Structure formats: structure tokens, C-alpha cells
């Protein structure tokens, strides 16, 4: 992969220079929460890595949008209003999240809503330092090789910039003098040093490789009942998970004339109605069954099919679930390790 070097002070100039490629977005600190917001003014933006509450899936797969309109004459897709966007500061785990969603939405037949938005979104990745809840090393998603256009590795006074796509290359070519083509040996050395350092500070280390077997064996484990009893079925875990994609669909009509939209909005497998079918039969009436689905889906099914979990280790469920039901506590409990969690009290 092409790797360049950029002095830190050039980043702002660079981002200003590529505004022509689309709206510039980044993660901002809104007092007590991190969210994606438009960066219209970079003058007091600090370009620090931050983990937004809602992962970047929301750009490709918005919480709620209209799929198409209909009227007496028929259906017409609503795809045209998608803006070009440049997202700065996407973290490695979230890039992995997008790769998993790419696989799902890109599979035959590709989902045009996701694909179109993905196509129109430029991903500028940014290296991070793990926080208290990050477990990306355990899921092997702390490094990225694809899924971005440019990736900025922060080495204190400069960035190493990995060019991950032809569009990324276009970006670099807008003002090539902002980048240094030639990397010296000590740059790579520094990078390796940095990586070693960073990898050593993941607070959560957990071995997921055995999970499929453990899940298989713990199908009847009392853990499921226990977490099912405490789960609030609030769905927060699924909303914040970078690889959760479930959605529901409703038709909405206009008043007074036959015209309307088909709306797609995020849904959660934690909700009771999720698996309900005709005549009220529910395949997952109990919360424990729904939780089991989530965890088999993330930690068993995906590993079985693609060799890795569909958990990307971002730690959001760890941060989000009010009753401490998350990949770490559940996986530990299934392995028979002691767990200190609300649901276990």
C-alpha cells in the first residue's frame, strides 16, 4: 500500500483543500457525548480520535429514511439526494464494522441505498489509543488493511498516511506538496514502536477464537435466563453496535391523496415484535431467546461462516448497556469465568 507522511500542521490545510469532494464530517465533543457533525469551521477542531456513540454505519444506513415514494402510477426510488461526504476520524474498529456491513449489504442483490451512500462517502481513518472498554485487539480489528480511502496514523508530530483507494489517491493529488513521498527507515521504526505500545494498552483481552464451540456447548446455559431476566429490551446495544443492521419497514401515506413513502428504520432483535409472525406466533417470545440470537449471531454464526466474529471490539455495548449485558460479560460468563455485572447480582 502507498504510504506517505504528513506534518501535523498540514492536516487542516489538507482537509480544507478537499472540501470540493463533499461535506466534511468529523466526531465532535458535544459536552457529554461524541457525535458525528459537519465540520464547517476547522479553526478550533482538534483532530483527536474520538469514538462516537453511534458508529459511522449511520451514514450508509441511516436510522430512518424513505426508500421510495409511491402513488397511483407506481413506485419511484428516492436515491438522488444523497450528498457526497468526507468523514474524518473513522476509527479502525469502525472501519471493520463497515467492512462487515459491506459484505452484508453488498451481497447479491446489493442494497442500493447502502451501496450508493457508501460510494459517495470518503472514509478518512484515524489511529486511536484504546479506551477503557476497547477490545479490538481481542477481535483482531485494531489494525486495518482495507475499507478506507486514507488512513492517518498519528505518530506524535506527523502522520503516516496510508492510501487505501484510488479515490484516496485523488485526494492526495489535490495538493501533493502537503505530503512527503519518501519515508525513512526511522519512520517505520517509529510506527512499529507506536503500534507495540498501543497494542500493549488494551484493557480488555479476551480470546474469542473458542467462542463458537463455547456457544454451542452453552446453548442451555443458565446464563441466558439470567441475562434475559435483567435485559431491559431497550435495544441500545443493537443501535450502537457497528455491525447491527436490522431494520423494519413501514408505509406512510400522505393526507388526502394516494401518495406516500416506504420508510426504513432501525429495528432491534431485542424487541419482542422482532420475530413475531402471523397469528401471534413468536419464535423469540422470551428475552433470553432474543439475547441468545444476538450472541450466536455475533460470536458463533459469523465466525462459522467467515472465520471471525462480527463483533469488532469497539466496546460500545460495554459502555451502553445499562444492565451490563455485553460481549465481554456474556462471553466470560459462558466460559465460566467470574463476572461482576448488574445482571449477575
Amino acid at each position: 500500500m502507498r504510504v506517505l507522511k504528513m506534518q501535523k500542521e498540514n492536516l487542516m490545510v489538507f482537509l480544507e483543500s478537499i472540501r470540493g469532494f463533499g461535506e466534511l464530517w468529523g466526531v465532535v465533543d458535544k459536552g457529554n457525548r461524541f457525535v458525528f457533525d459537519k465540520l464547517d469551521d476547522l479553526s478550533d477542531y482538534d483532530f483527536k480520535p474520538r469514538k462516537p456513540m453511534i458508529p459511522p454505519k449511520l451514514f450508509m444506513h441511516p436510522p430512518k429514511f424513505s426508500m421510495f415514494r409511491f402513488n397511483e402510477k407506481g413506485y419511484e426510488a428516492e436515491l438522488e439526494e444523497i450528498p457526497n461526504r468526507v468523514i474524518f476520524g473513522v476509527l479502525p474498529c469502525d472501519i471493520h464494522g463497515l467492512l462487515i456491513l459491506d459484505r452484508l449489504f453488498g451481497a447479491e442483490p446489493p442494497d442500493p441505498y447502502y451501496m450508493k451512500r457508501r460510494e459517495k462517502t470518503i472514509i478518512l481513518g484515524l489511529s486511536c489509543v484504546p479506551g477503557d472498554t476497547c477490545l479490538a485487539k481481542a477481535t483482531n480489528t485494531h489494525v486495518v488493511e482495507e475499507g478506507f480511502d486514507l488512513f492517518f496514523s498519528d505518530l506524535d508530530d506527523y502522520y503516516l498516511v496510508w492510501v487505501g483507494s484510488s479515490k484516496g489517491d485523488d485526494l492526495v493529488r489535490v495538493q501533493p506538496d502537503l505530503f512527503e513521498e519518501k519515508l525513512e527507515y526511522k519512520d517505520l521504526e517509529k510506527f512499529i514502536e507506536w503500534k507495540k505500545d498501543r497494542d500493549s494498552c488494551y484493557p480488555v483481552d479476551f480470546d474469542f477464537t473458542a467462542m463458537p464451540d463455547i456457544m454451542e456447548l452453552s446453548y442451555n446455559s443458565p446464563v441466558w435466563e439470567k441475562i434475559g431476566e435483567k435485559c431491559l429490551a431497550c435495544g441500545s446495544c443493537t443501535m450502537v453496535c457497528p455491525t447491527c443492521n436490522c431494520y423494519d419497514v413501514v408505509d406512510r401515506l400522505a393526507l388526502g391523496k394516494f401518495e406516500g413513502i416506504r420508510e426504513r428504520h432501525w429495528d432491534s432483535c431485542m424487541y419482542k415484535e422482532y420475530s413475531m409472525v402471523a397469528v401471534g406466533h413468536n419464535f423469540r417470545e422470551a428475552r433470553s431467546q432474543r439475547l441468545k440470537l444476538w450472541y450466536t449471531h455475533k460470536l458463533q454464526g459469523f465466525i462459522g461462516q467467515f472465520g471471525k466474529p462480527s463483533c469488532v471490539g469497539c466496546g460500545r455495548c460495554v459502555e451502553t448497556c445499562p444492565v451490563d449485558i455485553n460481549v465481554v460479560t456474556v462471553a466470560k460468563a459462558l466460559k465460566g469465568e467470574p463476572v461482576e455485572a448488574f445482571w449477575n447480582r
Partner: protein
Amino acid sequence: MREVVKEENPFIPEPMRIVRRYNLIDDVKLFQVRAVDMERALTLRYLPGQFMMISIAGVGEAPFSISSTPSRPGLLEFCIREVGSVTQALFKLKENAQIGIRGPYGNGFPIEKMVGHDLIIVMGGLGVAPLRSLLYYALDNRNQFGKVYLLYGAKRPAEMLFREEFLALRERDDLECLLTVDQDDTRDWPCHTGLVTSLFQYVKGIDPHKTYAAICGPPVMYKFVIGQFLKFNIPKHQILMNLERRMRCGVGKCGHCVIEYIYTCLDGPVFSYWDVIHMKELI
């Protein structure tokens, strides 16, 4: 213009017309549907066991098995029970009304593998919907299959779907058509009375390893029927069943039909008993 959008957008339904509708029983109707575009109507290909998403603008979408056989192109048939909003809206539509359809979706029956085998088709209640397609496919391509058994159970004679059609099938000598009702409240039911499993006594002379079994019906039925097949020594991967799950997209995106990481809409709705054994949630 819309053609282009449609081609790249699998969520936009194609316009189709209800050609005819028949009352089968109280809350079940048969809908005959044809693509508005005649060429599309004649070239639409599908497999028995596949399903389509029927869309009523302003109400929503729901998956329905195709009940007609691909061996008779032109018309699509759906056998539909009125249970909720989409089906209610559909039941209100008159002949010639336009609806939207997407599909066909799902794996369908592995016809290529089934060719050359004996067939035992077991259906209960609305389980007719997908299996009728398989049945007529086999009858239309009669020489490709060995023995063909049809076992169908309904609660009462009045609740038997396609009753006249199936009663007539009993006249055929290339098909063993076994019909039963749990209870004969009419007192002139010409066939068997008893649960569908009790029909197995009439299934004779099949070579289990050269037999495919197909089941569809209410969830309670599977266990008992599968038990019978196992007694016959039919290999587990040759026992096939159509499953139902909630579905919003039909193309593996919305997540509702997922079991572990298996999407019922992509990898199903036809599964083998072997799948069921290693995927606990399947039935």
C-alpha cells in the same frame, strides 16, 4: 425510465395484476397474478419452494410462497390466509387490481438433486402453499420422478384447501394422493380420518435412499412427521421442509429471518432436517 431504477433496486416492486381470485376456505384465497408487462410475465422463472414479496402500497409487504408450478408459465398463484394488515388489504382487492411484487426469492427445492427420486409430499393446513408448486412440477415432469406420494391433512373437510382439485387427483394412477381430516363433521368424507401421520401406513414400496420427503405445515406437525420419515430411514438431508420467519426484505438485509448467521430468505426457506439438527433454532 422506471425500468432502470427497478433493475438496480431490488426493493421496488414490479407492477402485477390480480387476474382472478378464488375462495378456498373461509380465510384463505387463491390469487392468480400476472406481470403487467407481458414479456416479463412469460419469462419470469422460479423454482418450486421459492417465495415472493407482495406489496400493497400504503400498507406494506409480506412474503408468500408461490403455489403455481414453473412448468406452467404466465400466471403466478398464491394461496393466502388473511391474518394481518397486508393480507387484509389484499383480500379487499378486486380482480384486475394492480399490486406490486418482488422476487422470486429463497433457495427453493433442489429440483436437480431430486430428479430421479421418489417423492413424498406431506402437508398440513396452509402448508399446501409451497408444496402444491412442487407437486404440479413433479406431475408435469412425471417421467423425471419415481413414485409420488401426496399426504395432506386438514382439520375438517371444510378446511381442506383445493379439496375438489385434490379429490380429483385421486383418479390419477401415477400419483398416490392420500387425504385425511382430523375430524369428519360432514359424515360423508370419502377419504381417511385421522392425523396426517396415520397416512404413513399407506406409503409402501419406496427406496428410502432414493426418496426425497417434503414437509410444510403448522410448527407442531414437523416433529411427528419427521419421526415417521426417520422410521422409513430416509436420509436426513433428503427430508426437506419449508420454514416461516418474519421477513421485511426477502433478500438478506433486514435481519428478521436470521437464525445464527443463516438467513431464512437466502439459505431457505427450504431446509433439510440435517440443517435443523445442527441449527437449534430452526424449528
